[in-house]
């Protein structure tokens, strides 16, 4: 290795290390602040306490907004996995024109501003007289979660070797057995990954949800945004820390089931 190469290699590692610190910084800050005793976010905190976690129990609107978010995220993920799974099978196995265009269409909400989508849906729902907030949120969140389901399931189905199904048939499996024993175990990791990412995308969404919430029904990000704007204190950090732990648990599940490296492939 020449000197230049060594210097570049060192630079690459220094920047990568700095990038990791940069990326993790907000999460570490959040967790530190949530255990601090000071109410003005001083870092390092003057002392440690659990008071912000205790306050969570009495915080108005938190439990109901968390409930709404989980319901919407679970229901929209379920519907998206169904619709998206069928579409992915059609795209991967079908022989018809325009498959790439259809895949691009079904995943296009990922590339468009969420706010614009929210406004378009607000106007549409108002036009058809849809007044139910829960249903409006669900319909809107399916549009947000479906791209994740289609993208991941489609790309892993194209990687699956379908001659294995034929092999299973030759070895005496019925069509159902072949699907349950060969295809399903192979697709389980992709299903899990796409479901988790769809769920998290729905849980985190504010740009679309903000148009469908009112004083009584809010999703968690909207409720948190309200807290931040009205009365910023480390209680928000406590909620955030719990969410970080939730995500960490999801990622551990993925790591155990698939390996994190697979996530970057989809």
């Amino acid at each position: 290795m020449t000197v230049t190469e060594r210097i570049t290699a060192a630079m690459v590692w220094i920047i990568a290390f700095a990038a990791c610190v940069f990326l993790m910084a907000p999460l570490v800050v959040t967790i530190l602040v949530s255990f601090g005793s000071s109410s003005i976010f001083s870092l390092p905190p003057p002392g440690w306490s659990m008071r912000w976690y205790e306050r969570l129990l009495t915080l108005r609107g938190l439990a109901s907004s968390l409930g709404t978010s989980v319901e919407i995220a679970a229901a929209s993920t379920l519907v998206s996995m169904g619709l998206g799974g069928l579409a992915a099978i059609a795209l991967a196995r079908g022989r018809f024109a325009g498959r790439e265009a259809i895949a691009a269409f079904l995943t296009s909400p990922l590339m468009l501003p969420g706010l614009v989508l929210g406004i378009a849906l607000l106007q549409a729902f108002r036009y058809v007289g849809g007044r139910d907030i829960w249903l409006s949120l669900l319909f809107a969140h399916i549009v947000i979660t479906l791209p994740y389901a289609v993208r991941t399931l489609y790309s892993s189905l194209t990687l699956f070797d379908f001659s294995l199904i034929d092999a299973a048939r030759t070895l005496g499996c019925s069509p159902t057995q072949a699907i349950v024993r060969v295809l399903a175990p192979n697709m389980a990791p992709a299903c899990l990954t796409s479901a988790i990412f769809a769920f998290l995308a729905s849980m985190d969404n504010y740009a679309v949800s903000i148009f469908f919430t009112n004083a009584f029904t809010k999703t968690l990000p909207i409720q948190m945004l309200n807290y931040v704007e009205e009365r910023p204190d480390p209680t928000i950090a406590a909620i955030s820390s719990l969410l970080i732990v939730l995500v960490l648990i999801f990622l551990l599940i993925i790591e155990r089931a698939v390996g994190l490296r697979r996530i970057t492939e989809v």
Partner: protein
Amino acid sequence: MNASSSRVDPVALLAAPAILYMLVVFALPMSVLVIRSFSGSSGPTIEAYTSFLGDAFNWRVIGNTLRIAFFTSLVCLLIGYPTAVALARSKGAVQALLLVAIILPLSVGVVVKTFAWQIVLRRDGIVAAFLVATGVWDEPQLLLFTETGLVLGAANVFLPFMILPIYSVLKLINPNLQDAAATLGASPAQRFFRIALPLATPGLFSGTSIVFSLAASMYVIPSLLIGDRFQTLATLTGRAFLLMRDERLGSTTATVLLVLSILIVTVSAWAVRPKGGR
């Protein structure tokens, strides 16, 4: 259309529910939004746009949007490319740690991270303390409510969307190419500019276009990190609908934002299109 497509493949019907859903609940409302911004009391008109673009304030808003998106993409590109290179070169535990550092923040909500940046960017925050300690600043300054602070926060939130597309391209490149070029007498600079960089280009373009469109349409990050004095197309759209109840203005800014995003996606798709015949 070819002859075989006249008979519909039964498997294709499985895609019908998803396509139908997205046509009715996604494509139709989006088209209506765009069409409505062109409708006037007496037939189609571009009056909403001429009045929007005739206002100097709105040009400043468009300028803000593009400038913030540009600097955010630039910061992400400068940090993201070397990080993706490190990720592609690493193995085992180091790679696992890098992946956790990238994917964990990616999966944590944007409100959570932006809230943390509010704390970090304060006058007595970590960044100010760091810059004073290293002698860059003589005394602590407020980074919150500045464009620099906004770019830092946005780059932090969107960095994973830069790293992952570049990494997915880099890991497919045959590492022997570099050695082969070295054997044939290419200098490190030549190898970088004639081999490493051109091969990474599709990843660089797709990462940059994703970050640029995300940064151009972000809403929560500017509203928490810079406030109302600074408007972008997205915050103006949100304000028009949620505070000012001015749907006409909101539809116009939303359409401008939509056109901008589609333009970015199309141009970058065109730039990385597979080139044949050479």
